């Protein structure tokens, strides 16, 4: 690359540099000797042997075994169980209840147990307490006990079903004496119940096994049979639930639409305003009855087929009669008005 002359010169330059470095190094050493710190990095042979580099298989460079501590077991100071060392930290977190995750789990458990307690204690005597939450507090009869089932509505569908199951057993005993737990519901819960109700009137509603959600297809959904739909409705609405008729498509749809829309508007209005407890008297109940029957009657005038109306109204009134705490007479007015219509 370079001419030989240049190379020679480069060599000389390099030699000069090396010499300079040596000189500098000598100065350092000399100073170290004179100041007395030259031999400081030398330890005695015994210590030198202790810290020698280890090069055996299975050991690290310090001579320690790799997973020596994995198999060791420690005793938990809280629960006095012997836990494997690698699982010790998470176990302690749950055991002491101080980690992030454990507080979340505890809160969820409390929320769940509150929901369960609330809806079960509703069935006994919560008139006074819960009138503020749900203006129609005295209307424990009325829609369906499914409202109560679905009323723990922070929960997923799966938990609702489970609650439904457990409550189904309870309510076998409670049939005529318990009210509807929806009196404790807030507006959000009402809306969710409402959407569920709409499902059951207009949609298939069969609960899918793997997602635990209701099928949102129409009542004629080919994936599910009528038997399944009936089973779902019975699950939620009680044994007297009737599957909405599918054949009378036109009339049924119009009826359902108006009915549910009226229901929606009514409940939304109710949810938004806080009615005083005094209002929740019998006036409300009769209003409910009148409303339900009023729309039905208007619809029946428009529509030709009466079966669907009767079935749905029959459902409502049937359920109402099943689920009241205090005996009120919803049944007699219903047939009378229908007689008028017919």
């Amino acid at each position, binding site marked *: 690359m370079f001419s030989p002359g240049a190379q020679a010169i480069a060599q000389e*330059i390099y030699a000069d*540099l090396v*010499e300079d*470095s*040596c000189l500098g190094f*000598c*100065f350092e*050493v000399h100073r170290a000797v004179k100041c007395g710190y*030259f*031999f400081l990095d030398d330890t005695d042979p015994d210590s030198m042997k202790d810290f020698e580099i280890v090069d055996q298989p299975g050991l690290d460079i310090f001579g320690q075994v790799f997973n020596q501590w994995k198999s060791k077991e420690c005793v938990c100071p809280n629960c006095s169980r012997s836990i494997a060392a690698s699982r010790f930290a998470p176990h302690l977190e749950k055991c002491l209840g101080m980690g992030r995750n454990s507080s979340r789990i505890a809160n969820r458990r409390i929320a769940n147990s509150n929901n369960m307690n609330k809806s079960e204690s509703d069935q006994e005597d919560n008139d006074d307490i819960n009138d503020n939450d749900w203006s129609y507090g005295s209307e424990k009869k009325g829609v369906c006990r499914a409202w109560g089932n679905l009323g723990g509505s922070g929960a997923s569908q799966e938990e609702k079903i489970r609650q439904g199951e457990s409550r189904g057993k309870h309510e076998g005993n409670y049939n005529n004496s318990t009210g509807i737990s929806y009196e404790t519901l807030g507006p959000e819960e009402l809306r969710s119940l409402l959407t569920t109700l709409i499902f059951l009137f207009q949609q298939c509603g069969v609960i899918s096994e793997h997602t635990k959600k209701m099928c949102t297809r129409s009542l004629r959904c080919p994936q599910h049979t009528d038997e399944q739909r009936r089973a779902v409705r019975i699950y939620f609405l009680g044994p007297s639930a009737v599957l909405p008729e599918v054949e009378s498509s036109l009339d049924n749809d119009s009826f359902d639409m108006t009915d549910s829309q009226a229901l929606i508007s009514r409940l939304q209005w109710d949810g938004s305003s806080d009615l005083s407890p005094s209002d929740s008297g019998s006036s409300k109940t009769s209003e409910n009855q009148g409303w339900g029957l009023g729309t039905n009657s208007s619809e029946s005038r428009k529509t030709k087929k009466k079966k669907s109306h009767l079935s749905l109204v029959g459902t409502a009134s049937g359920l109402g009669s099943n689920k009241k705490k205090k005996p009120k007479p919803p049944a007699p007015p219903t047939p009378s008005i229908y007689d008028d219509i017919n």
Partner: protein
Amino acid sequence: MNKDAQMRAAINQKLIETGERERLKELLRAKLIECGWKDQLKAHCKEVIKEKGLEHVTVDDLVAEITPKG
């Protein structure tokens, strides 16, 4: 010869002027440490010092000893 010496001087001067020499020196030091040259030198120094006794070592002695080796 003269010309060579002259050229060498000129080059050296140029190097110093531009600061290249310093850079080269640092580079060389780093390389020497990396390859362990410094440690070897140090060991040799220790021997010399042990030979000569701790108190009487002078810079010149050291230089004279280790520069050729270096």
